[in-house]
């Protein structure tokens, strides 16, 4: 969670809020923040750390591991209408890459800003070529985009 906390400012600039969820109580969240995370991120965790002790939220999102009684490492990007636009679920031993969350967020925000008239091809980042789906683009994507344009 410290990696997400360290990138909070970037997410805030994109008008995104962060909520973290685990099966620990809010009391334990306080202890973890005050005794460890604050040593990893200046000021500690800047967003709400939700307690889901009964696993109700994790179950609703398909992130609940019944055998271990924990939440899997799920990450959901939810748009301003409350619709899930992206999700990623990892097993516990591997951490996420926040840059990819930021990239996806920017791409979904771009699509939304264009009212769905533009689409973001693989690896898209702000400033890169977008695609404008329509009859003229069918069979002609190669003229405007190819994988070498990802970087």
């Amino acid at each position, binding site marked *: *969670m410290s990696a*997400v906390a360290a990138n909070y400012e970037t*997410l805030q600039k994109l*008008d*995104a*809020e*962060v*909520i*973290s*969820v*685990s*099966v620990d*109580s*809010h009391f*334990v*969240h*306080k*202890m*973890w923040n005050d005794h460890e995370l604050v040593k990893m991120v200046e000021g*500690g965790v*800047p*967003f*709400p*750390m*939700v*307690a*889901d*002790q*009964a696993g*109700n*939220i*994790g*179950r*609703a*999102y*398909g*992130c609940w591991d019944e055998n*271990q009684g924990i*939440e*899997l*490492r*799920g*990450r*959901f990007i*939810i748009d*301003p*209408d*409350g*619709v*899930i*636009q*992206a*999700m990623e679920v990892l097993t*516990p*031993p591997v*951490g*996420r890459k926040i840059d990819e*969350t930021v990239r996806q*967020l920017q791409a979904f*925000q771009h699509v939304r800003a264009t009212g769905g008239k533009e689409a973001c091809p693989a690896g898209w980042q702000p400033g890169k070529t977008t695609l404008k789906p329509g009859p003229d683009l069918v069979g002609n994507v190669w003229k405007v985009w190819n994988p070498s344009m990802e970087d």
Partner: protein
Amino acid sequence: MSNEGASCVRVTSSVGGSESSDTLTQAPQPKEEVKKMGVTVGQKAPDFTAPAYFKGGFTSVKLSDYLGKWVVLCFYPGDFTFV
């Protein structure tokens, strides 16, 4: 800052927009409630209300209060784990 999560009564999370419930006064839920659930992209995110720790205090978080903003919702296995 609200201090509602600080009593000894165990407040837990709830989904579907209902208020947090106090498990000490609530009858056990029927077994069928434990059925496997999940979400898909393009669907509404299930609403929930749950106690939280936030900037030195205890508060209650309701996902639907965030409508109008983008939200990055992150689950993780547990506090004091290593990754």
